[in-house]
């Protein structure tokens, strides 16, 4: 069974802390994504990566950074956590694929982060 695993389901951190959210996929997918989800706003893309050591900003990258040192792992970093970063964070991966390959996105179970 294919899997995207996020390191924590729930996290509580203090304002100003540096926070690491880890995501690992076992499908050898090239593409990985970090989203945050807030009530009424749907999923918003923070950062994504097409390959190891590559990263691209999504729609809301401010206050975040990412790291992709290995193909299977994509980390989201909150350099100095703030209360407005309290949210559900979702990691996803997709296959680069070829013409007939499915572009299905596989998601982790989510990390609910609370910054106090």
């Amino acid at each position, binding site marked *: 069974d294919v899997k995207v695993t996020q390191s924590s389901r729930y996290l509580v951190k203090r304002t100003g802390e540096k926070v690491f959210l880890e995501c690992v996929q076992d499908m050898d997918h090239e593409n990985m994504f970090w989203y945050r989800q807030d009530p009424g706003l*749907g*999923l918003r893309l923070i950062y994504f990566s097409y390959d190891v050591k590559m990263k691209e900003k999504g729609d809301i990258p401010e206050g975040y950074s990412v790291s992709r040192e290995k193909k299977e792992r994509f980390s989201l970093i909150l350099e100095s956590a703030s209360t407005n970063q309290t949210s559900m964070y979702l990691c996803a991966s997709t296959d*680069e694929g070829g013409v007939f390959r*499915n572009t299905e996105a596989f998601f982790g*179970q989510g990390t609910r982060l609370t910054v106090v």
Partner: protein
Amino acid sequence: LAKTTQPISMDSYEGQEVNITCSHNNIATNDYITWYQQFPSQGPRFIIQGYKTKVTNEVASLFIPADRKSSTLSLPRVSLSDTAVYYCLVAPRGGGSYIPTFGRGTSLIVHP
């Protein structure tokens, strides 16, 4: 990427058929229509994908008219466990640099 529009919310009752329509007027020739389902406190999961006409699997059916400017996700005989948010996405076959873009989706509430 083609923009999608779907209702914000829908209500239904157990045992009824639910149809959620999504419009995607600017769909490209090589785009597929994909639907995801998200339960509370979980990540979205893929439920069905189609290009034209009708696709059916064990979860749902997807109806796509000839002009492909809209699609309808059909859930037969819903139960309470079908309460979820349903997202319609347009995606090119073949991955590459495709970025899954999710709107607000349709929040379906199934009542007893």
